[in-house]
């Protein structure tokens, strides 16, 4: 069986949540696998990360370089190429970093590539059967992946549940010298932190969240009215921000805000995994969507198949009635 590596992203000296999920994915490939974690970075932060990882991975490869203080995918790819043996299986999280690094890594390792994997089954020594999703999660697909010359897989965040495992006393192997110096045509300058915006959706217990189904800026008021009647706020999914109907600070999802409401009304939102990743704390999720096959119905507690443009005003009227507030 090919050797399995998990590249672990980290921040502030703490390994990313994906560290345990990648280990779980490795065990799906081979229950007896002892995957090797790889962490790159610099200074005491990297030391802390490697120490933490050695509690769950039997072997941790450390690559310490000042140039790697920020995870620049091109530099990291070049570093990995110097140390990862050909034919290996390399796992990464399917996030903004995995998308940046993994496709090019697969080419340079001459390995098969399968992105955004939700399920893994080993068919034989040379093939995996994988589960992926297409069309925004509306359908799933089985993918046969030839791993005879190795494979790079990015793993859907949250798809592999970390299993409780006995703590190990892993070894940290310093690979820095083997890697040597690497240079890149892309240079990190700075990180710009998201602006706060007028309304802090992370503080609200009721969110009326709108997606593409709201159809236009002129209809945002329908959600605003309901949110006001319910004492909540309006949030949204990515297409609404792309279309400039609402500000970026209202976006829920992995590239937006993480919210923890009690009640989340998803109105005209299909329910991509990137969007769902921004909803934490197990709220009561209501889905209203014209498309009965929208993935949001799979995760919602209650659903209505209807046009939000017609349903929202009726909900607002009813809430106002229940409050005993007469209109105007």
């Amino acid at each position: 069986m090919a050797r399995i590596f998990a590249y672990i992203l980290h921040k502030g000296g703490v390994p990313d949540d994906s560290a345990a999920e990648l280990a779980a994915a490795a065990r799906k490939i081979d229950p007896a696998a002892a995957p090797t974690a790889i962490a790159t970075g610099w200074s005491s932060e990297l030391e802390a990360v490697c120490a933490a990882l050695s509690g769950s991975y039997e072997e941790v490869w450390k690559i310490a370089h000042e140039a790697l203080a920020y995870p620049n995918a091109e530099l990291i790819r070049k570093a990995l190429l110097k140390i990862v043996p050909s034919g290996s299986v390399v796992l990464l999280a399917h996030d903004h970093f995995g998308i940046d690094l993994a496709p090019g890594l697969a080419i340079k390792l001459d390995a098969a590539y399968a992105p955004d994997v939700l399920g893994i089954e080993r068919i034989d020594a040379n093939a995996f059967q994988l589960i992926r999703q297409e069309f925004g999660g509306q359908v799933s697909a089985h993918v046969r992946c030839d791993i005879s010359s190795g494979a790079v897989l990015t793993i859907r965040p949250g798809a592999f549940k970390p299993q409780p495992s006995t703590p190990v006393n892993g070894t940290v192997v310093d690979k820095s010298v083997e890697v040597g110096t690497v240079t890149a045509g892309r240079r990190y300058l700075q990180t710009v932190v998201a602006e706060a915006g007028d309304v802090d959706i992370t503080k609200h217990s009721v969110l009326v969240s709108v997606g593409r189904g709201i159809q236009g800026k002129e209809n945002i008021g329908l959600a605003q009215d309901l949110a006001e009647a319910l004492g909540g706020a309006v949030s949204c999914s990515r297409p609404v921000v792309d279309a400039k109907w609402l500000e970026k600070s209202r976006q829920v999802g992995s590239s937006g805000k993480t919210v923890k409401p009690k009640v989340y009304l998803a109105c005209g939102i299909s329910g991509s995994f990137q969007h769902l990743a921004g909803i934490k704390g197990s709220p009561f999720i209501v889905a209203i969507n014209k498309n009965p096959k929208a993935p949001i119905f799979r995760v919602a507690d209650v659903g209505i198949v209807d046009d939000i443009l017609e349903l929202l005003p009726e909900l607002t009227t009813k809430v106002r009635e229940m409050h005993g507030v007469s209109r105007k």
Partner: protein
Amino acid sequence: MEILVCAKRVPDTSENEIALDAAGNDIERDDLVYSINEPDNYAVEEALQIVARVGGKVTVVTVGGEDDEEILRREMAMGATQGVLLTDDAFAGSDGRSIAAILRAFVQMGNYDLILTGVQADDGAAQVGGMLAAMLDYPFASLVNAMEVLEGRKLKISREIEGGNKEICEIDLPCVLSIQTGINEPRYVGMRGIRAVASVPIATYGAEELGLEAPTVGANAARAKRVDYFLPAQGKGAEILEGSREENVEKLLELVAAKGGLK
């Protein structure tokens, strides 16, 4: 600046409910509405805006068949200088790596300063841009949501990272960037614009002209092959309210109130 945008024609998920066919292992393909992959359209708009500022030419290329010409014409109606179709029976069944290999062969016939792709397409793979860059040994950045042309053959770019934060980088040209939706506001294309380019010839290249040998691309070269489609496990799924609209409103608010959503 010579800019190449790689685009794909896809079933439009905002217009279609994707369902399984009668056999249950493929999607129902009759009556699907197709359009240009949305992030690719943003990429073309970005290319047009750059060329408007610094001069140059925008070429839009796709790998596919005759039907895919419609998106090339649409993007030409937007203002792209030319459309190119890479088509050959030998390309059928290509995986992401083979698509990247076909595109690389085309890139090497030209002299592009900048190559753009959409961040991802209908299969959600987000792979071709990064693969193409690695094959060409060009720098690459994904999820680009802003860019600026600098002196000295380089760009300043912004990448969308977690929590709405942005990573700002400098990147040398030539490079490959994958473009995130929302980077700009793509211009509207009317029927009149489409008609104006209806008879403009689309340059077409096959495997031989691209110097590609059949076994290196297409189904036989694919290392990741889709076996079938199926419906995802339903989990517990939502309780669907199936009453009249009025009944649904009432029932829903009852449930919401019980969960503390009504003050």
